[in-house]
Every structure is written in structure tokens, then in C-alpha cells.
């Protein structure tokens, strides 16, 4: 039964080696995009006639918020793969994505509230998108704390995979219900800001660079923490010992 052997030990090693080759390219691409995006958005984008410099947090908030929406689908997908095919690498992804997602969501909330100072004149508004993000943040913390609370690694892995799937469905329902709640309670809030701004190419081209940069940053963080987790889990495997001996 070489196949199960491959699944158990081969796959993480394969990922570790492959991702090691990708990493320099990804980091290079990210730094390039980030430099272009940051310089462009801070120095060359025309200042909004209504809003001050804080408005430029837009170039951080939008990419970070959009990536934080990707975490639950990612975790649910990895969780399904883990539950169905028992692929250990998928569980590693579920495990590292949860705290990473919580950080990104926290960043999106923080940048959103800084943006809110300019837009609404206050640090926090029960705006539909911010509220959904906040609830998603809580759900991610729930996955993280479930993982910490269940000591048994196999059981914790499956429980978190299942919770990720349930959570993913729930995030969608929360999104719709919060939008519904928000439109009925605060019909006058100014939501059209983002689309107003993204009018000309001088506004949205740097945004695209920032989005690509943040997506790459996300991929790099995910890969790095996955590699870290793999090394920890496989510390008894021969290839990890060889690796340690070489370094």
C-alpha cells in the first residue's frame, strides 16, 4: 500500500520543496507590486476634494477586506478535502488559515474604522460591511479556540474542518441578513464612496497593484505558516532531520 504511505508522508514534503522554489518569485513579485502601488497611491493619486489624506487608507482597506472574505471559502474547501480524502496537507491549511484570517480581518476592521473617521466622522459605525466582517472575525476566533481547546490532534483537525464548512455557509447567510438589517435601519449611510472613487484609471490602477500585492502577501503568509507547521508535524521524518542537519 504505497499510496497511503505517499499520502501520509510524501505529500507535505513535496509541498515543502515545491513551495521553497516558488517563494523567492512570489516575494519578488509582491515587493514590486507593493512598491508601485504604495508610491502611486500615496504620491500621485489626486487628493479627493472632500477628504484629506486619511482617505488613502482606501488603498489598504479594500485589498485587505477583499482578501479577508476569501478565508472562509478557502478553509471550507481545505476542510472538505481533508474530511473526504484525509489529506493531511489540507488540515495544515485549515489550521494556519484560521489565525491568519483573524489577523487579516482585524486589519480590515482597523483600516475600515480609520477610513470611517473621515467618512462618517467616527471610529465605528454599524455599517453593513463592517458588521459582517466583525461577525466573521468572531467566527474565525471560534475556529481558532476550538482548535486550541481540543487537544487530540486528529479530532481537532476534523472538528475544525467541519466548523469551517458550517462557518462558510453561515458567513454567506450573515452577509445577506446583515445587509438586509442594515438597509432597513440605516438607509442614508453613504455607501457609494468606493465606486465613486474608482472612476478614472488614475484611481483604480494603483488599487489593482495594491490588491495583487496583498493577495501575494496572503499567499506568502499562508505558504510560510504551512511550511512551518509541516516542519513541526514531520519533525520525526527523515527528510526534516536531513534538512536540519544541513542548515
Amino acid at each position, binding site marked *: 500500500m504505497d499510496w497511503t504511505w505517499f499520502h501520509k508522508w510524501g505529500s507535505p514534503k513535496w509541498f515543502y520543496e515545491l513551495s521553497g522554489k516558488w517563494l523567492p518569485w512570489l516575494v519578488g513579485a509582491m515587493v514590486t507590486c507593493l512598491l508601485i502601488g504604495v508610491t502611486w497611491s500615496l504620491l500621485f493619486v489626486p487628493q479627493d476634494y472632500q477628504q484629506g489624506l486619511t482617505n488613502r487608507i482606501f488603498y489598504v482597506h479594500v485589498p485587505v477586506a477583499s482578501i479577508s472574505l476569501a478565508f472562509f471559502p478557502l478553509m471550507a474547501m481545505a476542510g472538505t478535502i481533508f474530511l473526504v480524502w484525509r489529506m493531511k496537507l489540507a488540515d495544515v491549511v485549515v489550521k494556519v488559515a484560521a489565525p491568519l484570517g483573524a489577523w487579516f480581518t482585524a486589519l480590515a476592521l482597523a483600516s475600515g474604522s480609520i477610513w470611517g473617521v473621515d467618512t462618517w466622522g467616527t471610529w465605528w459605525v454599524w455599517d453593513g460591511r463592517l458588521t459582517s466582517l466583525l461577525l466573521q472575525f468572531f*467566527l474565525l476566533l471560534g475556529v481558532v479556540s476550538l482548535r486550541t*481547546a481540543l487537544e487530540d490532534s*486528529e479530532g481537532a483537525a476534523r472538528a475544525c474542518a467541519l466548523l469551517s464548512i*458550517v*462557518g462558510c455557509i*453561515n458567513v454567506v447567510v*450573515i452577509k445577506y441578513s446583515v445587509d*438586509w*438589517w442594515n438597509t432597513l435601519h440605516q438607509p442614508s449611510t453613504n455607501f457609494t464612496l468606493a465606486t465613486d472613487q474608482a472612476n478614472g484609471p488614475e484611481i483604480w490602477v494603483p488599487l489593482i497593484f495594491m490588491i495583487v500585492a496583498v493577495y501575494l502577501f496572503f499567499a506568502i503568509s499562508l505558504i510560510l505558516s504551512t511550511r512551518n507547521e509541516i516542519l513541526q508535524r514531520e519533525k520525526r521524518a527523515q527528510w526534516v532531520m536531513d534538512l536540519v542537519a544541513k542548515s
Partner: protein
Amino acid sequence: MSAARSTLAGAVVATLRRDLLIAYKRKNDLFNPFMFFVLVATLFPIGISPEPEALGEISAGVLWISALLASLLAMDNLFRADFEDGSLELLMLSPHPLYFLVLAKNIAHWLVSGLPIVLVSPLIAYMLNFPEGAYSTLVLTLLLGTPVLSLLGSIGVALTVGLGSRGLILAVITLPMSVPVLIAGTLTVSQTLEGASLSGYLAIMGAMLVAALTLAPLASAAALRISVN
């Protein structure tokens, strides 16, 4: 000694009967969620304001949040005793689909912990100066919404049943998931007060209930298998 294999309905009814019997014998299960609901609702006038206008404004939200917390508190008895005494293992080794057996347990649990809250809600609503003319809406939304809360909570309980101290982690998992029900319940009440037609809102809550009835026991059953593993 030869008798027919039990039917699925027989197994479901036996499970329902057993859980109701246990609740009846442990009067606490029957009484505590109900008392908790009344107590939490009582705290709001004391903490916020005894002014009838102010209370009337928030009464729907108060009732819903109290119901949500009471249902969370009650969740702990759903699988815990069965896990500890081994009955859960028997349940899982039955040849009948676990989905229906879990559903039966959920129904029994709601009858014991949810239904009394729905029944007492008009009284508490009156004490909170709940606007007249929305009483039936309130009861209807609670009747549709509290089962959803129980079904969602059951997933969280099933995931954490093996843990020693799970009170807080259960809340962290369950409360965000309950938000859509809270929104639907309170919005339905406030919109009917403003004269909107009830049927559309009730349809949304009904859809939530149907979705929860079909999906949540699946997730709970899977979670139980993981927890007992």
C-alpha cells in the same frame, strides 16, 4: 427470541420519548431555561430605563436576545449527559440513520427548552410595554426562530461535547451563527409594526427553519461522530 427489526419511526419515537422522560424526571431541565429567559428580560428595565416608551422601543430586541441566551444556556444538556454515560455511543451504533435520531433529540430538546419560552413571551412582552398589535407576530417569529437557534446550537454542542469546560467556547461558536435568526426575528416584528405585510418576512423565517432542519442535524451528526471518535 425473534422479533422484527425496529422501524426508523419506532427508533425516532423511542428516542423522543426517552429524552422527554429524562427532562420530566430532571425538573431542572424543564425549568431553568425558562427561568433564565424571564430573569434576563427582567434585567433590561433595571439596567436601561423603566420608562414605558423606552422599553417599548427595545422590547422586541430584549425578548429575542433573552431567548437567544436562554437557548444557549440550555444547549449544554443536549448531548452532555448522554456522552458521559455512554448512551451517545449506543445512539451512533444504531442501524438507523443518525440524522433522524439527532433530529429527534433536537425536537425533544426544543419542546423542553424552547417552547416554554415561546409560551411565556407574551407575558414578558406585556411587562416590557411591547407595542400592541404585534403580539401574534412576536409569538410566531419566536415559534419559527427558536427551533433554528436550537438546531444551530446543537452543532456547536456536538463539536464541543468532549471538552471539560466548554461554556465559553460554545458561546463563541454559536452566537455569531445565530445572528441571522436574531436579525430576521427582530426585523419581522419591527416591520409589521410599521405596517409591512407579515407573510414575506415569515416566509424568510420559515425558509431558515427548513434549511436548519435539513442541514443542521447532518452537521451535528458528523460532529458527534468526530467527538466520540
